[in-house]
């Protein structure tokens, strides 16, 4: 086992990917001389040089598009967009090019591109720096959306993402970077399946990314009240692992979906609909969800906390469903 952090695990993943494939390179704002805005790429410039650790100008659309072209041209680029808030500037390249070129070309050109970005709120960064958009991105055909919520996934998801012949977006919740823990020496994970992070029989807590920890904490509390909650970490937001979701709900017959996205039109709705489509008759109660309030993120700490999913809300939602 290795003692590490989410941040180091991601750095290690990038390093080994760079070592394993000379066609892999990292490109983004401040990934080099600054060491990465979240210090993920710290030290890599020294190790791999400026050709493969490329600081870019502030041009999200430009360097994301360049990543698309480089991928078509035979490279395996990792594009880092500092945060999903800035990815809006690159959305044309992501939705209109990365997600469509294979299709528009009838399969002649593919885009084996990985785009990493930080996501999420909770650090008092206000309305322009606190979006949680991974669930929203999961609407776009042609993309694979990953949300590593554990150190092991931070370490393991990049390799299969780079091996994927199509564009993969990895959303790293910024609150997780400091998470510390042990992971196996050899990490090998897939980017197809959800994972049960805690077994349970009374209710399923379905979540991903930054909300996994809160959901596990809620399950802990519920256990104290004699409620056995299963926690399902979606891991892959597109394509969704329907089977895993339906199997869990078929067992527990109840579900709370925890999603940091703004409530309306968040991924939580899609998950609930999939359950309705695939397991309506197995439900003993309507599905509940705990999401972010529909407000641009306020700066004041108490308001930000109130705006985001909290363990107490998850516990309350579970209790209510179970009529406790």
């Amino acid at each position, binding site marked *: 086992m290795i003692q590490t952090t989410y941040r180091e695990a991601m750095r290690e993943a990038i390093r080994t990917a760079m070592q394993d494939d000379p*066609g892999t*390179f990292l490109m983004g704002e401040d990934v080099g001389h600054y060491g990465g805005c979240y210090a993920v790429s710290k030290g890599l410039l020294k190790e791999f040089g400026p*050709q493969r650790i490329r600081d*870019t*100008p502030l*041009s999200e*659309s*430009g*360097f*994301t*598009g*360049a*990543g*698309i*072209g*480089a*991928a*078509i*041209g*035979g*490279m395996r*680029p990792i594009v880092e967009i500092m945060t999903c808030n800035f990815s809006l500037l690159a959305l*044309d*390249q992501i939705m*209109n*090019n990365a997600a469509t*070129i*294979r*299709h*528009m*070309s*009838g*399969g*002649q*050109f*593919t885009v084996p591109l990985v785009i990493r970005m930080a996501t999420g709120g909770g650090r008092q960064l206000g309305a322009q720096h606190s979006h949680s958009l991974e669930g929203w991105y999961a609407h776009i*055909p*042609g993309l*694979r959306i990953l949300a590593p919520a554990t150190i092991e996934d931070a370490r393991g998801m990049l390799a299969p993402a780079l091996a*994927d*012949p*199509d564009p993969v977006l990895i959303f790293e919740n910024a609150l997780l970077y400091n998470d510390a823990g042990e992971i196996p020496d050899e990490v090998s994970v897939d980017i197809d399946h959800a994972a049960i992070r805690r077994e349970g029989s009374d209710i399923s807590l379905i979540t991903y990314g930054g909300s996994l920890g809160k959901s596990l904490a809620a399950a802990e509390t519920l256990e104290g009240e004699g409620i056995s909650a299963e926690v399902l970490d979606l891991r892959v937001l597109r394509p969704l692992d329907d089977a895993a979701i339906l199997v869990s709900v078929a067992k527990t017959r109840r579900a709370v979906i925890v999603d940091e996205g703004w409530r309306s039109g968040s991924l939580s709705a899609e998950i609930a609909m999939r359950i309705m489509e695939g397991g309506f008759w197995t439900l003993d109660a309507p599905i509940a969800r705990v999401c972010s309030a529909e407000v641009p993120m306020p700066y004041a700490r108490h308001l930000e906390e109130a705006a985001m999913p909290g363990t107490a809300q998850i516990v309350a939602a579970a209790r209510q469903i179970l009529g406790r």
Partner: protein
Amino acid sequence: MNGPATSKVKLDHAHCLELLRQMLRIRRFEEKCAELYTKERIRGFLHLYIGQEAVAVGIMQALRPDDAVVATYREHGHALVRGVPANAIMAEMYGKQEGCSGGRGGSMHLFDAATRFVGGYAIVGGGLPVAVGLALADAMQGRACVTACFFGEGAVAEGEFHEAMNLAALWKLPVLFVCENNLYAMGTALDLSESQTDLRTKAAAYNMGAEAVDGMNVVDVEAAARRAVGAIRDGKGPQFLECQTYRFRAHSMFDPQLYRTKQEVEQWVGRGPITRFRNWALSAGELREADVAALEEEIVAEISAAVEFAEAGTWEPVENLLHHVGAEKRI
């Protein structure tokens, strides 16, 4: 058709024949497309290149087979000259699976791996960053290739133009930016879209070599393209080429052309690149009437064959609807 510009262009019989052939292929091909559009064999948007043929033909003379090309939704001509078979292009416009994009792309999204024709892009400015990336991939893999990126003058106002130009120049990437200045972006005249209409000043802001050339003169375009591509291959970094040209037809088949006068169009048609070059070549004795007649025949044959091919083409089975969204193993 002389002066320094032509110096690097060997205007012998064979080459004159080739230049005229390529321009005529585009012209006749698109005249046929317009006809087929009214017959509803071709659908969607159809953006004709008629009038601008000298640009695609002149530029392509400077490219090698391993170079890459990125174009716009007005790209039939570029694809044809680049070597994408007329059959495959026409079938694509029909939406048949024998099309160069399997019928998935249509007129605005022609792609062909064999000739490194990396697409028609329909988001104005959207192809530029992709072209920069293709050049980056070539550079990082030590391939001495150039990526020619075509776009209209309207794209110059887009942020993606700015970001792509700066990145290419900053990283000295082998990109030839070909701005086809046909004076209008749909109905918006250049002076209504740019506060500075001398487009070379844009390149200067990125420290990029730039030249403006008469885009109605195929020889001047070829000469300028050879200079620019030469500079790129010599490691002088990306180059910007403004080709001053004109679109003879409507922007698309829906355009009533309220924004320009018939006279203006006629004036430009008078300076048409094909007539002009043909007349020069004839008077210069490089071509004979018989050559031109033979060309026309050959091209008519090629195009009717293309139409036959497209007509005979087949529809992709509807069960394949979800193909090409991701790699098979992933679907």
